[in-house]
């Protein structure tokens, strides 16, 4: 394949699920464009129901495209599904592991689905177990593994065919913080080895940590695209001042802050007021000048969460 062409290219990509049992047809993905090249880590950031998983399923050639065009590794998923699937790896949101089988057996069975010879699977298995830090658990039943181990096993399994692209759907959802960091470390290593990563997440820290480039999704559309840094710089101020007052007082406070011209933008959340300003400490001093007395005040750097809030008027995690 020509190395200058994008690895994946989507134009006006859309997915509509047909009506079922009285529910009307549902347009999960509503005409999106994106492309990415070899070695990139690309993320789809958005809340549940934004259309991220549907997009991933189309990329994985297991869900027919309703409208628009999609090319994966230069191929059309409609006619070359098996060829595409043989060259990509998929880590689904549900682990889809066989709990009755052992760690080793799960990888082995999966490798056989790819038509890999037994000797090749056996040779790769040892490396994958090492990569997933599961050597000690190789012959344990999956039933006995922790959530983090299962997730690492799912990733190890998805690498059995040495994929050029790895699709990860919500890779750390439901894991504890320590397990998440272990997993991120493994994904950095893959990235360093040149594997193209495509990740969906509703965690902004995950998006910031792992992705070179992000598409922010909402309601089936891409509402912004760029590197995490670019997104923050072009959509929000450098810092945010978070003020917490007694319940029900937030709207009135926001009004006074706006009238006094403090901050470039002010958002009211159920439990706090966000003041976007280049200098958060200065904004806090000005607020004190209005003799406002917040219960707590916090100055922090802006994050993707703020970008999302500005673009959609909603938080990422409801």
């Amino acid at each position: 394949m020509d190395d200058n062409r994008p690895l994946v290219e989507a134009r006006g990509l859309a997915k509509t699920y047909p009506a079922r049992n009285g529910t009307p047809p549902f347009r999960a993905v509503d005409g999106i464009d994106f492309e990415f090249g070899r070695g990139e880590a690309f993320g789809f950031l958005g809340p549940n129901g934004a259309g991220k998983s549907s997009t991933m399923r189309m990329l994985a050639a297991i869900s027919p495209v309703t409208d628009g065009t999609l090319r994966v590794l230069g191929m059309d998923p409609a006619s070359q599904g098996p060829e595409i699937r043989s060259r990509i790896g998929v880590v689904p949101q549900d682990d889809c592991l066989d709990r009755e089988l052992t760690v080793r057996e799960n990888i082995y069975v999966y490798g056989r689905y790819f038509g890999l010879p037994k000797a090749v699977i056996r040779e790769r298995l040892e490396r994958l177990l090492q990569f997933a830090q599961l050597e000690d658990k190789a012959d344990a039943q999956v039933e006995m593994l922790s959530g983090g181990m299962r997730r690492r096993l799912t990733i190890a399994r998805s690498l059995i065919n040495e994929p050029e692209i790895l699709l990860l759907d919500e890779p750390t959802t439901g894991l504890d913080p320590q397990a998440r960091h272990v997993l991120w470390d493994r994904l950095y290593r893959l990235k360093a080895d040149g594997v193209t990563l495509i990740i969906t997440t509703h965690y902004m820290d995950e998006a910031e940590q792992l992705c070179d480039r992000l598409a922010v999704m909402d309601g089936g559309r891409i509402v912004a695209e760029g590197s995490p840094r670019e997104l923050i710089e072009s959509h929000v101020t450098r810092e945010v001042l978070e003020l917490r007052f007694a319940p029900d007082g937030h709207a009135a406070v926001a009004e006074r802050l706006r009238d006094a011209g403090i901050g470039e933008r002010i958002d009211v959340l159920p439990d706090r007021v966000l003041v976007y300003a280049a200098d958060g400490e200065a904004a806090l001093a000005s607020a004190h000048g209005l003799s406002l007395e917040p219960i707590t005040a916090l100055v922090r750097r802006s994050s993707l969460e703020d970008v999302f809030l500005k673009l959609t008027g909603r938080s990422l995690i409801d």
Partner: protein
Amino acid sequence: MPRALHVFGYCLRLYRRTWKGTFVISVVNPLLFLLGVGVGIGHLVSHGHPATLGGVSYTDFFAPGLLAASAMQTAFVEAGGRVTVSASPSGAYRTATTTPLDPEDILLGHMLFVAFRVLTSTAAFIAVMELFGTISGWWVVAVWPAAVLSGLAFAVPLAAWTVTLRTYPQVNSFFRFLFMPMYMFSGTFFALGELPHFVRLLVSVLPLTQAVELCRGLSLGHPSAGGVAAHGSYLALLLLGGALVARVTYRRRLHA
């Protein structure tokens, strides 16, 4: 076909963990039934009206009927709720869909395993029948494929339906309200001639009735050519039609 074999291989790997239990069931069940119902009730029946069974002993009459019914029961176990669970978001089918396998490969692979289960369980059943001497001579060679066809003619259309289900309870309702009545009234335990004409017509179109008639005719050693052709093609059509529908429903469900 080669790709489907890997799914079959996976099913066998899982089955390795439970095969002993199912094997005991495949042998002990017919043994108990043939002893209890065949010999026990048969004793009462034969002393009453032997003519209604065409002059054969109740055990000889009942055994091939139960063979057909048990082939379908195996089919129900392997292609009923198991398919629904496999097609669920975290099920075994989902693992296979992310590989080069197409939904049609997954369907074929699973049905190969169902065929394997029906083949082995009916073989055990037929061995027990031979022990009781209920099969007429060499007709056993024809009874076995007939029993396997009976199981598959039921399994494949069943899988075409169960793959579309989101929840398990519907499969249980199917078992209670459709499968059990069919099991009881398809002439497994009695001659259809005993039923009123209208009911008999209704019952004769049930797949199990067709399977029972086919297996019984062959087992008793005096099948009519027309009967074998009619029952055999009915079951073959059911199997084929089921396969055509299943190809569509599997793809619709797994590649939504």
